[in-house]
């Protein structure tokens, strides 16, 4: 039993330096997640602002409409399909780096969810603060920048961190466009060794370790934030 496990371990990880491909896959997963979250942050923040401006001032009507279309389409379709469309349809005649295609797909996807996170952050600040700001002579923009946003962002930071963790697991479908992320690396090992247990357990373990690590960071971060009240 033990001997067999050892042989399996050697076959799946040591032979041909297969563990290296797991590490490379891990790096790809982290890279794609990181840049996708940033892209999602920019998109989500902008969308949330546009929608809030429209709600409060009735300006930017066209942009608000476009944002609503974006939210509906992205949240209404699976991320795998979006990824395939980006890679095989939108970039159909362009040789694009797969990582970039993946960052775009997951970033655009994440942006829709982050937009909702930001909106809930803005809505979490009592209306009275906006009214107070306006009655003190601030215009809408000044109130947003100086009073609402600093508090709103602080409120949503933990949720954004959570989005990072969720997105990291979601990128596991990147193998659909032959991007060798962590999951695909396990898949490739499996296709060579014809044993499923070791590669998949290793992949699962690596995801779990990453998630636990980032959750821990997040918790520490939240504790620090909690200290600085208004």
């Amino acid at each position, binding site marked *: 039993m033990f001997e067999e496990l050892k042989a399996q371990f050697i076959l799946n990880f040591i032979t041909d330096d297969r563990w290296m491909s797991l590490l490379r896959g891990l790096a790809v997963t982290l890279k794609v997640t990181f840049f996708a979250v940033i892209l999602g942050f920019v998109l989500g923040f902008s969308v949330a602002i546009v929608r809030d401006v429209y709600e409060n001032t009735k300006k930017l009507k066209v942009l608000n409409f476009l944002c609503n279309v974006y939210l509906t389409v992205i949240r209404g379709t699976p991320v795998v399909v979006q990824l395939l469309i980006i890679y*095989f349809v939108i*970039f*159909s*005649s*362009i*040789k*694009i780096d*797969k990582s970039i295609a993946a960052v775009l797909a997951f970033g655009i996807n994440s942006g829709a969810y982050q937009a909702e996170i930001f909106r809930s952050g803005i809505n979490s600040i009592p209306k009275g603060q906006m009214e107070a700001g306006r009655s003190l002579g601030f215009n809408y923009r000044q109130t947003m920048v100086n009073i609402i946003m600093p508090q709103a962002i602080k409120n949503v930071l933990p949720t954004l961190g959570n989005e990072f963790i969720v997105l990291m697991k979601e990128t596991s479908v990147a*193998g*659909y466009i*032959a991007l*060798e992320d962590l999951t*695909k690396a396990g*898949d*490739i090992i*499996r*296709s*060579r*060794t*014809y*044993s*499923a247990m070791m590669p998949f357990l290793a992949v699962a373990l690596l995801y779990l370790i990453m998630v636990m690590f980032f959750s821990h960071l997040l918790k520490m971060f939240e504790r620090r934030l909690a200290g600085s009240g208004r």
Partner: protein
Amino acid sequence: MKKKILTIALVGLMAASLAACGKASETQTSNAASESASDGKAESKSDGTAKIKTVEAGKLTLATNAEFPPYEYHDGDKIVGIDMDIADAIAKKLGLEVQIEDIAFDSVILEVTSGKADIGLAGISATDERKQSVDFSDTYTTSKQLIIVKDDSPIKGSKDLEGKTVGVQTGTTGDILASDIKDVKPERYDKGMDAVQALSQGKVDAVIIDSEVAKKFVEETSGLKVLDEAFADENYAIAIKKGNKELLDSVNKALSELKSDGTIDSIIAKYIKAE
């Protein structure tokens, strides 16, 4: 309180429906088993094949990847192709009914080793590495790996592949060949067709895939051609779980009968037009 009663009622209902399901399927399988048992008897009278134990009684469960024309592919809602016809012919000889499991190619052998399928029949080349995981039947046909490029590509042969990106299907012999070429970055797609599509969109420089499949893909996609140079011959065989000698022997027996009476040749001729 009302909610609680409702919950209990629902749980009860679910349990009942589950039990009903279990019963229904039980009777179904036992029906199938008895049917095939009589089938098997009739068969064993005629050619003396012993009754074979399969994953599901009375059925020859077959793992394949139905995206590999002309060996196996979807035609309407059916899976057809050379391998499927051969499987039908073998199953007929064994007195079994074919049941197809369509799965990613790199999982076909796993289905067999983990005992979820009786045979793996997916244009599998019997390589030494694979022989460590499964037993193979006798060869039923041969194939070789070919290179597909764009019509205007500067690549003339395998030597020109150095330093290029090559699209392959994960876990195929083409994947293994490409990984062995110097400085080649293989891009591993789940489906052969995805690799070919990436080629026609200029995302990879070449695709290495089994010869008949390559010809089929090139036929269906404009702007692509197959290079004349081929890699070494490979033998397609049926994968069977290690140690299942009973099934291996009966499959081999059926195969040799099908070969000698010309069935296999006519099946292949049906799908591959002679050049």
